[in-house]
């Protein structure tokens, strides 16, 4: 039986179909979760997809944070559930305080839509364990507000605690730590492309692994991340160790 993985659909999400497709390709049973519902339908993991939730009004992700679905996702995450935010989904997680930091306007002020190269910093997480060895991964970015920011003390803590999950790198794997490095598409501090929360069950990244899942698309490197998530969710479900997003309200789920 395949594991159920939810994709939250906000008004303005536009990569939800890609996420659903990639999850299916990775062997999951994808489940569409509507933003107005707090019912997570018993999923074992959740993807927040790319797009422009609520039109990105005010700040990207700011309004999505208060949706019934996000309140349920927060409770699901607090109970240890696996959550992956991609692009706009990362912005939503950051606004909700589920991952550290914030995503600022790209340093160039331009919307950047191109293939980038990233490398995992950690290979022992639910989001990266199938990558196998540390190596550059090719996948696209498409965003106007992807410049990762946190204050210096937070950045130091993230590095120390292993919460930096991905960095932008050159094709030879050399990290693009400098915000003005051409391999750093948005000016992210220390070249950070993705981070995790302290507990290691919530991750966000700006690049799009879900649109790099077949050679036809220019790269299938992203499938390694999606498959890592799906297999981690399946493994946890089999071990009976995690809360699934079943349950009535978000608050009950959080209280467990």
């Amino acid at each position: 039986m395949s594991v159920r993985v939810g994709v939250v659909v906000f008004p303005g999400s536009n990569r939800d179909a890609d996420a659903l497709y990639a999850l299916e390709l990775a062997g999951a049973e994808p489940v569409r979760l509507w933003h107005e519902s707090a019912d997570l339908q018993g999923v074992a993991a959740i993807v927040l997809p790319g797009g422009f939730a609520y039109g990105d009004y005010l700040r990207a992700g700011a309004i999505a944070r208060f949706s019934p679905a996000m309140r349920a996702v927060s409770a699901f995450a607090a109970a240890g559930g696996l959550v992956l935010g991609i692009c706009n989904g990362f912005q939503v997680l950051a606004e909700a305080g589920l991952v550290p930091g914030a995503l600022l306007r790209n340093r160039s002020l331009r919307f950047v839509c191109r293939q980038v190269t990233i490398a995992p910093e950690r290979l022992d997480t639910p989001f990266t364990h199938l990558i196998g060895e540390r190596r550059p991964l090719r996948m696209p970015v498409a965003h106007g507000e992807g410049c990762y920011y946190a204050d210096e003390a937070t950045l130091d803590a993230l590095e120390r605690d292993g919460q930096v999950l991905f960095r932008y790198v050159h094709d030879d794997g050399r990290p693009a730590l400098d915000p003005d490095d051409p391999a750093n598409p948005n000016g992210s501090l220390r070249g950070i492309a993705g981070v995790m929360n302290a507990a290691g069950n919530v991750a966000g990244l700006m690049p799009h692994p879900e649109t790099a899942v077949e050679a036809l698309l220019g790269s299938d490197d992203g499938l390694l991340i999606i498959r890592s998530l799906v297999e981690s969710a399946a493994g946890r479900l089999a071990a009976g160790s995690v809360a699934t997003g079943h349950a009535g309200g978000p608050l009950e789920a959080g209280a467990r």
Partner: protein
Amino acid sequence: MNEPAPIRLAPKQAAPDKPAPDKPAPSRPATEFRYAVNVTPKPGILDPQGRAVEQSLPHLGLSGISAVRVGRRIELTVAAAAEAEARAIVDQLARELLSNPLIEVYGIELLGATSSTTSAGYPSPATDLESGAR
């Protein structure tokens, strides 16, 4: 495209079809306070918009201008019994939604106040806040 769902912040704003339970009783004396919330990038945070504005200044033939920061101004009306109460609501809204405290700071400006029992003067009546009373 669907309309975004109303954001749930205390005190709850009444949806058109179901009145919020904690809405002030109509008999309660209320004044409408008009505020501006000014949100700007925190000092030290890179502001590429401010930098772009600054870099355009030579094209205008202007000099002596520095430290340009681009922010956002939100104006709104709050009905409450007292200014302190209204300000506390605006402060919560500014802290939780209008700004992101990691990267932005905000200031609250009182623009004016009008008793909701009179229709004269500034600000104009905010019908969506007290629609039940009209």
